[in-house]
């Protein structure tokens, strides 16, 4: 998860209404920095970061709700929907990554070693979709799946990949609609109002 963009210098004695707008604009830019990946369905990390950035913007609008125009609530609703769609996508990505690791790592010998090496490499790069502790727990050599269990896992993986495609499609359609509505401008306009 990408760290939140620093707010930078603030006049702490400035009116809360002004600061709220300043912070919201930073969070808005942060969110739009990730939107270049919207059309790339398999940039899973980046789409996850977009989700986190949308969430940060949403929380900012919510925490300063009292000093923002009423319309901020409609924007919060839209952001919540976006965040939910990306959340479901992320859930699928995590499960798919986990299943791939299970299926790649449960055979003894080379494949197992490869899976562990892959995890170690990704861990060093901090690119893991699944927490290393969870991987270690799942890839317990004392609890490998039987052939029948592997069959079920294979099917589960295929099914989840299909679900993931649908989820991405839902999100993507929603995003295109937001683009058509000029959602970014709508937010900027709301922040310009008092």
């Amino acid at each position, binding site marked *: 998860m990408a760290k*939140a963009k*620093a*707010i*930078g*210098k*603030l*006049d*702490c*004695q*400035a*009116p*809360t*209404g*002004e*600061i709220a707008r300043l*912070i919201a604009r930073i969070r808005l830019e942060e969110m739009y920095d990730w939107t270049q990946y919207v059309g790339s369905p398999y940039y899973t990390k980046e789409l996850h970061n977009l989700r986190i950035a949308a*969430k*940060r913007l949403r*929380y*900012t609008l*919510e*925490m300063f*709700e*009292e*000093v923002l125009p009423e319309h901020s609530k409609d924007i919060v609703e839209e952001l919540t929907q976006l965040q939910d769609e990306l959340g479901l996508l992320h*859930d699928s990505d*995590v*499960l798919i990554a*986990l*299943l791939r690791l*299970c299926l790649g790592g449960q055979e003894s010998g080379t494949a197992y070693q490869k899976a562990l090496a892959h995890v170690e490499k990704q861990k060093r790069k901090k690119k893991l979709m699944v*927490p290393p*502790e*969870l991987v270690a*727990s*799942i890839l*317990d050599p004392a*609890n490998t*799946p*039987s052939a*029948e*269990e*592997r*069959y*079920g*896992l*294979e*099917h*589960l993986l295929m*099914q989840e990949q299909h679900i993931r495609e649908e989820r991405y499609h839902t999100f993507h359609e929603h995003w295109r609609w937001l683009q058509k509505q000029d959602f970014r401008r709508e937010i900027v306009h709301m922040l310009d109002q*008092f």
Partner: protein
Amino acid sequence: MPIDQSPVRGAIDIGSNTIHIVVAHSTPDDLDILDDEVDLVRIGESVTTTGGISDQKRDETFAVLQRYKTLAEQLGAANILVVATEAIRKATNSSTFLEQMQQETGLTVHLISGDVEALLTFLGATYETVKEANPDAPLAVMDLGGGSTELITAHGPHITWLTSIPIGSGWLHDRYMPSDPPHAEELVAARTFLQGYFQEMQVQQEVSTLIATGGSANSLLFLAQHADFLDASVHHLTIDALKQCESLLTSTPAAAIAERYGQPLERTRILPAGCLVIQEMMARFQLTEIQVSPHGIREGVLLAYARYGEQWLERLQEEARNMCLDKPEAGESIPLQHDETSDNSAYNKPFARSGQMMLHERLHKLLDWRDEVLKQEDSEAVHKMRVASRRFRAILDACEPCCDARRFQKVYREIKQMADLLGAARDTDVMLQKLQEQHEEVPLEEQAGVAWLIDRLETYRKEKQRALEKYFGNLDKETLKRRVESCLPKGAQNDG
């Protein structure tokens, strides 16, 4: 002194929809009501449309107050106390309106805050209950209004918590179920919204008695009695009676119901929404019935005056201020201030001061979930605490430039550690929930694989629960609170 020899006083409340009067013999703990009247003036309608109180509404209010004043004097009232609430608070011309009312009627109209309103409602709605056998029983009062709901919990007469929820029957009707009668999908959406909202609401105590007051609750009781869903002598609404009311209200146009049962059409239109709010509040408290009280603010005013005399309002304001120091709020909105109502003052408040208040409130909200997570009774507790931690971090991020860097980093690291632990547990819960649902649905030959993964994830989840227990077992809440408080240096909070 026997109650019928105690002084007679009148109390009038000017609300968004109605103006009410009650005239009664009053003691500090009891009332003997001589007369009670209500007029539907709907000042709120004018305020919502134009921002101010129109001349027509002002004249109607004036006429009602004159009539009420005469009534109270005829019944021998030594004092007539008048309070005004939400609609007048919001009106752009409230000062002029209050002055005119005083000049034209000779009555002083006190504009009270939302918190004082909640205290008065509580006093009025419970004075009969607390006289009963178990006066210290945990109870709650919900005052369901058109635009908001006041919720107060207490042990007998001692209030433990109060909050104002920005959901009222009028609001829910306008936003989620405007059709007449409401469509099935509108009902589903409204119910889903309420369930989500009330689930997030962290009530400070469970209660065995819920007393509902306000126009919608009383109208629903009236409807249930007159439609034969309840015996006419009972003053409580059961969940079954409410479901029958819902069924009637959602299958019959409001005009037909209004005509059949002699109820105002405007009230009848918003009753389906009121019915849902009450049902979901009952579900939140796991109750199957509620008491309905016809009493509220005005009875509270009479009791408060009998207790504190001329200082009644100052005493209540002080009490409300003291309660607000620890008052958690429901839902997502964070009030930046408690004692003022002007949006401008919230806007202009120095950020360092608002930030301090938000940090304080959100930290409390976050830490309040600790025990629930450890108890493991509510499967959503981990999720809710994780969300609370994210919200708290969002405020930390916003406040960082005003904070002492070293202290801030320390707190930030600690909250991040907590959030990471909660995140690992929650993400596993999400996968488990999904797999458990799928396990039932996949063909038999694929079930073994799903079961294997569930088993592995459950083992991992137990490890995460142990880690959470260890972390929270060592967490000193008071130390963390002090650390957070000290992040914003005192100088940064000085707003002159």
